[in-house]
């Protein structure tokens, strides 16, 4: 086959933008997906692998006692972070299990009270898929659509609650867009409508990032994860209210650990790490919150100073301080991620998935698919610095400008052509 090949310019090994002093690449700015273990946490965990390795359920020797004491301490640390009582903490393998346990466990235990669950389209898959499973098993599920700001209203939730509603499950802060639901008002509205309905909240992204008080929120159940707050992976917790006592059927039967709600030998080092992570987060909350917000605003301002046609997804006002989810019109998200390979972020573009559908969260907000494909989620965390943010701004702006020069949509926009007026050929 005759092919004329144009000589390719030599590979641009040089970086697009200069790396400032004090910045080490790659930069991790995807702190909603996970976080590194804080060195203080790791230090607390280490003795529990080899030195204090006892089984916390061993009641008859000092190895067991040491492990049990460490678990009790961690239980109190986790409870303190969210304003709960140590006896209300049930350790699980992570938040996915905690969410499954909360919703399935409550629906099973209170089946005589009803057969209805209410949740929201923008919940994490751990909640949505749990509800789908229940639906297949004959439970009625109502999935509410949030407003374009990502928020549901207390009235909207109360309207969905019936005398058959067993559980309402609504997250406090969203993992993609960081929006914070008016949870206290939602709980109050639900309880006014049906005093027996339980409210569970996935507080994974909120815990340790903003003040959370399960008592003030008047929740019944709440799910947490350690690795989103600088603790280890593989450990989470379900907070289960004791006064008045909330009951759930276990998903895992065995030795009756965790007061029968979750059997299985406790992973003591992970629990110790979770506890320490909670303690550190609680201690630093008052300073870290404002610092995260300042970094987020610096990032947002910096991007907007260099680029036009950027759109923040979800409410900017009711949002986690470390989250910025932003669409860069006319630039496909995955191609931008490729340019940002030295900064770990994530995209709402689903170009990698077989479905070719962008983020279901952005779609639920009514974000147009063409904009959803251009979204990037920045998740700032404890170890990010101003210098890293400045480098990121520079890299993002330079990359978006370059990719817009490559984009036929940007060219049309510059020529004043309305992209919506074109007869496209969906594929």
């Amino acid at each position, binding site marked *: 086959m005759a092919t004329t090949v144009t000589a390719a310019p030599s590979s641009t090994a040089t970086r697009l933008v200069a790396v400032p002093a004090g910045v080490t690449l790659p930069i991790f700015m995807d702190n909603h997906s996970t976080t590194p273990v804080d060195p203080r946490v790791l230090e607390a965990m280490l003795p529990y692998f080899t030195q204090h390795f006892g089984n916390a359920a061993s009641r008859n020797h000092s190895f067991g006692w040491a492990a049990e004491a460490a678990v009790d301490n961690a239980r109190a640390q986790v409870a303190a972070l969210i304003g709960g009582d140590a006896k209300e903490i049930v350790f699980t393998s992570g938040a996915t299990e905690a969410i499954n346990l909360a919703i399935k466990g409550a629906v099973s235990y209170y089946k005589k009270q009803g057969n209805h669950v209410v949740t929201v389209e923008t919940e994490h898959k751990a909640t949505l898929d749990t509800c789908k499973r229940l639906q297949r098993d004959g439970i009625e599920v109502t999935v509410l659509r949030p407003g374009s700001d990502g928020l549901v209203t207390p009235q909207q939730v109360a309207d969905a609650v019936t005398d058959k509603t067993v559980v309402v499950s609504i997250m406090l802060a969203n993992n993609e867009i960081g929006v914070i639901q008016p949870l206290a008002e939602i709980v109050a509205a639900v309880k006014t409508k049906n005093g027996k309905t339980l409210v569970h909240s996935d507080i994974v992204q909120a815990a340790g990032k903003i003040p959370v008080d399960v008592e003030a929120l008047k929740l019944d159940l709440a799910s947490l994860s350690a690795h989103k707050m600088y603790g280890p992976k593989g450990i989470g917790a379900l907070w289960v209210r004791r006064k008045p006592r909330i009951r759930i059927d276990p998903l895992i039967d065995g030795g009756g650990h965790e007061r029968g709600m979750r059997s299985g030998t406790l992973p003591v080092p992970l629990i110790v790490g979770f506890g320490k992570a909670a303690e550190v987060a609680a201690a630093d909350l008052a300073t870290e919150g404002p610092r995260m917000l300042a970094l987020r605003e610096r990032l947002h301002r910096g991007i907007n100073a260099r680029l036009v046609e950027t759109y923040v997804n979800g409410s900017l006002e009711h949002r986690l301080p470390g989250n910025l989810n932003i669409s860069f019109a006319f630039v496909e*998200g995955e*191609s931008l991620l490729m340019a940002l390979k030295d900064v770990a972020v994530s995209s709402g573009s689903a170009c*990698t998935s077989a479905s070719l559908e962008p983020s279901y969260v952005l779609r639920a907000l009514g974000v147009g698919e063409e904009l959803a494909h251009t979204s990037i989620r920045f998740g700032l965390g404890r170890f990010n610095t101003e210098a890293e943010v400045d480098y990121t701004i520079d890299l993002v702006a330079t990359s978006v400008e370059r990719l817009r020069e490559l984009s*036929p949509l940007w060219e049309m926009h510059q020529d004043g052509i309305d992209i919506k007026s074109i007869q496209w050929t969906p*594929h």
Partner: protein
Amino acid sequence: MAYSDKVIDHYENPRNVGSLGKDEDDVGTGLVGAPACGDVMKLQIRVKDGVISDAKFKTFGCGSAIASSSLATEMIKGMTLDQAASIRNTEIVQELNLPPVKIHCSVLAEDAIKAAVDDYKKKQAARDAQA
């Protein structure tokens, strides 16, 4: 997901980026894909004596889509219209080592070439009809 070196090379050093005069007689334009699907390719050819003398592209899409269209412009330069229109997406898949989830990018590039050739032919037919 890891990209092949060839995809990265085309993404970082895309060949033949740009636009040709859409209304010029010897230019054919193909515009395929949809913003809602996350992929839009514009591929243009300039034809002299039945041979593609120049090709330009602009693409909104992932790195593999950019690489597929960049490669397509390289391949078709110097080809006759029929040669260009007979390029199969599998040649692009092979050259770029595209994984299965990215095959649609190569299909879109093949469609873009065909659309540009069709557009040029239509233009010529319209001109011949007028003459």
